[in-house]
């Protein structure tokens, strides 16, 4: 079976995010005053073949810990689509 995995890698809370800051300013300048706490990271999308959703999540987690996220500065979240 194959699953679509969405990984969201974002700068860890407290870690400076210059990109998020710049985009937040830009949004305000464009009149989107309602936007705040903008953080920018990487979105990774992939297909994972696995026995079941749990196994797919397990694999994805391993990939994040090993490669996709930088443990020094980033946190990540996973989403598995059947």
């Amino acid at each position, binding site marked *: 079976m194959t699953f679509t995995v969405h990984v969201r890698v974002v700068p860890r809370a407290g870690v400076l995010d*210059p*990109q998020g800051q*710049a*985009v937040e300013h*830009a949004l305000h*300048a*464009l009149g989107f005053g309602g936007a705040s706490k903008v953080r*920018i990271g990487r979105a990774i999308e992939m297909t994972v073949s696995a026995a079941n959703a749990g196994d797919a999540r397990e694999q994805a987690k391993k990939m994040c810990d090993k490669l996709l996220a930088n443990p020094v500065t980033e946190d990540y979240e996973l989403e598995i689509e059947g």
Partner: protein
Amino acid sequence: MTLRVAVVRFPGSNCDFDSLHSAARAGTDAYFVWHRDTDLKGADAVILPGGFSYGDYLRSGAIARFSPIMPAVQKHAAAGGPVLGICNGFQILCEAGMLPGALVRNGRLSFVSRPVCLQVEQTETAFTNTYEPGALLRMPVAHGDGRFTATPETIRELEANRRVVVRYVASAGPARGEDNPNGSLNDIAGIANAEGNVVGLMPHPDRAADSALGNLDGMGFFTSMLSWEPRAAAGR
């Protein structure tokens, strides 16, 4: 009276002086316009210089294109006024929709700083009319997001109407491997709008327009502004 050239300074522009000096050496009256200004102070031509406007955060040129000065630049271009975008300036023109396509991360995924060889393919523009058709130019590139990409239709349209202004080539013959430093589609280094008054390119003529540096290959981009006579797109 001499041609007035406005060089727009965005926060993070870092080739602003290089463009200003090149335009001045070409014999124009070149001056800076601040990104927060709203008029071009009577400019005959406009240059959007290289650099990292707003740090190139989000996407190169994505934030700068909303600067207060940009409506004036768009108006100037719509009226047939010459606008040159160099490197980051090219990225801004694409983000602003003044030129088609987009400039994305280099194929090699890293910044590339090196001399490249270019062929001038379209001389009927505000910035290349002093070059011989087919002229070979050597000048530096220095960018991380220089891979020109666009829909197949757009590419076809650009090629069909000879809107590719400069193309990456080898010192002899078509580009092989590293000759195209960023993986741009069709080895495209620079393009023009249909009227030829708006031109953008990734390489840096502003770093090849000074005899003291031993390279004048880029000077034509600045002298061409002086001899440009706008003509209706139909006339092409």
